[in-house]
């Protein structure tokens, strides 16, 4: 874990070395995007649903404190313990203390991007707690000692052969086995044993409902429920932005979530936890970790509307061709790139540049976050704050010099075209970043301006 972090562009270069692999990755995610399209188009009210969801979330941002207080009160009335954590360290300490109080040293966990953000597994493991991720994709990446590469599809970067080899080593499946049915069955058996023997379960939270004090956890595998209903203690971790005002609002969000994520009409299990079962303890940890700061940034606060469907990743031409790990952040892709700089501007300054600003992310977002505008705005903030690497600064300054002086622009255009025609190796070489993974275009004989001037005269 002490590896130095590669910038997104560098990491993408590594990712792009294997062309058939990149093509496969690209097409696999595009296929998921297409399923989303098909599914959303079956609902004539889709766009109105997005607008409604967006308005509810806008309201949530504007009434955040009241909703959280209401939620806390209801949850307490329901017999649930509520904790508040200012940052990752506080969150992790709360979890550790709860486990220690019960003398528990092993825990099952269902998908929670927040615990990834808090690096909870590493912390607990250092403190003698064994954490088993139970979502199949998460278990796979955990066995490989790497983070998820996608918030909904954690192991989307792996081929079945990789998983076959991994399971052969760790779960004793046959060498060379690649049948998904067989491999998933092996994982089922392996994880059933964990469910049966662990006394603590941690889950994420998809939605926390202020007027009932309930929280909703959605999975396809059933792992959150298997863990929570068998454990003596259930801990649910949530970023405070997961709150929604009323139970009936779930109708809007559950219609959008799975359709946006995978194209399914709804996830297989949508569990509404309100009270602990008899003899069980239930805890909710409400986490800040930079969210209050983001709430104060007028240009970026609505990134907190995100419901973590992953649609922006599946559609993003940069994500699809660079892979989730290139983003070196718990949440990758376009949404990750507007969340990450808030956490650490120096470390994540490269991420808002990992985009073509094509806007596809904003178009698919079920809660209408203006993701590509925010990517653009983060660039300004980061450049002003001196977080943009010098080379990028030089390039931008050179470009602004050329573009702001028409005569110089004409001259350099002519020079460029003639260089490309007469000495093509000057641009067709590895020093030119535009030459990577693509051929340079045939240079036109004259510019549009020259053509226009000539034709006007005639």
């Amino acid at each position, binding site marked *: 874990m002490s590896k130095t972090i590669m910038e997104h562009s560098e990491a993408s270069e590594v990712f792009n070395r294997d062309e058939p692999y990149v093509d496969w990755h690209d097409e*696999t995610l595009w296929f998921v995007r297409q399923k989303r399209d098909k599914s959303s188009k079956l609902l004539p009210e889709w766009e109105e649903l997005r607008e*409604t969801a967006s*308005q*509810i979330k*806008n*309201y949530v*941002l*504007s*009434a*955040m*404190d009241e909703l959280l*207080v209401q939620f806390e009160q209801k949850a307490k009335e*329901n017999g649930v313990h509520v904790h508040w954590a*200012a940052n990752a360290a506080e969150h992790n300490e709360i979890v550790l203390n709860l486990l220690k109080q019960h003398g528990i040293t092993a825990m099952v966990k269902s998908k929670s991007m927040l615990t990834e953000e808090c690096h909870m597994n590493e912390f607990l493991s250092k403190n003698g707690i064994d954490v088993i991720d139970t979502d*199949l*994709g998460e278990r*796979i990446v955990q066995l490989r000692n790497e983070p998820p590469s996608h918030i909904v599809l*954690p192991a989307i970067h*792996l081929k*079945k052969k990789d998983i076959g080899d991994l399971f052969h080593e760790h779960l004793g499946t046959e060498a060379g086995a690649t049948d*998904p049915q067989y*491999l*998933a069955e092996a994982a*089922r058996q392996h*994880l*059933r044993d964990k*469910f*049966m023997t662990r006394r603590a379960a941690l889950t994420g939270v998809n939605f926390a409902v202020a007027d009932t004090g309930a929280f909703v956890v959605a999975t*396809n*595998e*059933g792992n959150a*429920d*298997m863990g929570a*209903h*068998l454990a003596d203690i259930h801990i649910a971790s949530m970023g*405070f932005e997961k709150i929604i005002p009323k139970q*009936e*609002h*779930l*109708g*809007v969000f*559950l*219609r959008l979530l799975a359709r946006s994520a*995978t194209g399914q*009409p*709804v996830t*297989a*299990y*949508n*569990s*509404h*936890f*309100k*009270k*602990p*079962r008899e003899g069980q303890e239930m805890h909710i940890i*409400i986490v800040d970790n930079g969210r*209050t700061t983001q*709430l104060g940034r*007028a240009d970026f606060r609505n990134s907190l509307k995100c419901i973590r469907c992953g649609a922006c990743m599946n559609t993003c031409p940069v994500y699809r061709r660079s892979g989730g790990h290139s983003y070196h952040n718990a949440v990758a892709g376009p949404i990750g790139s507007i969340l990450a700089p808030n956490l650490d501007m120096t470390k994540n300054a490269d991420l808002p540049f990992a985009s073509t600003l094509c806007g596809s992310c904003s178009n698919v977002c079920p809660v209408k976050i203006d993701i590509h505008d925010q990517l653009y705005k983060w660039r300004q903030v980061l450049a002003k704050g001196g977080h943009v690497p010098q080379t990028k600064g030089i390039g931008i300054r050179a470009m602004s010099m050329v573009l702001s002086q028409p005569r110089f622009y004409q001259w350099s255009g002519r020079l460029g075209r003639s260089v490309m025609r007469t000495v093509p190796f000057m641009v067709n070489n590895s020093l030119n970043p535009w030459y990577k993974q693509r051929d340079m275009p045939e240079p036109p004989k004259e510019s549009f301006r020259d053509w226009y001037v000539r034709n006007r005269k005639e």
Partner: protein
Amino acid sequence: MQTREEMLRKIRLNKPERTSLPANIRFDSQYEDTESKFIETLTAIYTEVVIVKNWEELAVKAGELYEGVVNKATTIPELNIWADFSLNVADPHELEMIEILILKAEFGVAENGAVWISDNYLPHRVLPFITQNLALAIPRSAIVNNMHDAYERLTDTTGWGCFIAGPSKTADIEQSLVVGAHGARSMVIFLVEDF
């Protein structure tokens, strides 16, 4: 307590100007026939729908569907003769042996095939997940069009409830769909006329 106050203080300081909730949050789904839509949706998510007149007919169907299976459990008194596994256990871990479980549930949703089940219908919450195969029985008349209708109908005030749509599944291995991840490997929905 200090953290709580500090978080709430920062939120109050940083939150945007108050907006209002949208006036309309529900949309109608128009289906020619709600039940056909429900069946069509469930078929697409690997779930068989069986229409029966009453509990006796359900018992007969269950006998056919799960012939030769042992460790059969149910929460429906009329099916007690069919079952051979008692749900009267103190520790839910003991339920791991169940092969097939038939449960009463409340209502279904046509747009996504989800069925609502809750503490009202369950002696143990883990039941619908721990069983190898699951069947849910709902009144034939209890199907709503979409999730807005579902939440309008939902007055359940119990401690836990779940919309379950089809069997457990995963596509985490190269996007290949595998049915039967951690929960039920198969799912049947019985629509019962005289519930």
